[in-house]
């Protein structure tokens, strides 16, 4: 694969990434979950501090409780990766308890090695002050035919470009 082809593949992955909010009950293979977790290890972090910790589960009872306390979790995922912040480690680096930089603001995309049918969705964490999970990555197989008109996600489109004003 040439450099151009690799670049095109990355752009295609970026443009085809989407949040799935309707999933089937089909289980997520352990290998797929491990691929997601392994991909997360490669994600860059500020100062290479790696303050996030990941907890994966496919336990039905845990998933049910997670969903009932996660208002943004519309889907019924077959597995979830809870993304937590290592508070003691963050404190050791000098971050104050309510430092906004510790929060995870995006859901990681599906890694290429993952089954093509396994997609991800995301759900926000509860409180900025708690030590609990900051974000939950929902894993499962997308269910077709979901409605999307006039929705919070809707048809995916890139945000409008903003330009910096040119200096004199």
């Amino acid at each position, binding site marked *: 694969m040439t450099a151009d082809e690799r670049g095109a593949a990355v752009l295609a992955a970026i443009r085809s990434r989407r949040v799935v*909010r309707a999933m089937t009950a089909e289980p997520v293979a352990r290998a797929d979950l491990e691929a997601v977790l392994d991909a997360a290890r490669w994600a860059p972090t500020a100062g290479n501090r790696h303050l996030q910790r990941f907890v994966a589960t496919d336990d039905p009872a845990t998933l*049910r*409780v997670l969903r*009932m*306390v*996660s*208002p*943004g979790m*519309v889907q019924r995922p077959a597995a979830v990766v809870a993304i937590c912040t290592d508070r003691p480690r963050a404190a050791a680096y000098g971050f104050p308890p309510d430092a906004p930089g510790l929060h995870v603001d995006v859901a990681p995309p599906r890694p290429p090695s993952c089954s093509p049918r396994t997609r991800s969705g995301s759900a*926000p964490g*509860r*409180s*900025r002050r708690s030590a609990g999970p900051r974000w939950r990555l929902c894993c499962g197989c997308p269910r077709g035919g979901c*409605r*999307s*008109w*006039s*929705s*919070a*996600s*809707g048809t995916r489109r890139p945000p409008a470009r903003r330009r910096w004003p040119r200096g004199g």
Partner: protein
Amino acid sequence: MTDANTLVLDEDTALELLAYLVTAARTQVDEAAEYGPLRLLTAARRLGAAIAPRASAGTAAFAAGPLDAVPELAVPREGREQYVARLDDLCRALAAHLTAHFGDRAAQ
């Protein structure tokens, strides 16, 4: 046919909805205001789906009909007037069901 004493929700499901409402109240403090009606309608849809199997035919029909027809992720952002109009339609459908439901009770 059900009567006023028919139980339509088990404890686990009721607790699930309670947890959703409490945590949604917390997240709403930090969320965009437009998510407020979305969260409430999500709770209504979940409640409707939970009670429908044991509820009266009319209530089940309302849950499976007008309530379920509300898009899961609709928010009053673009097309706000259309959003409000659809909510008004939902309220009218609810009013019609309440009138029939409690009217039947009063007649018994």
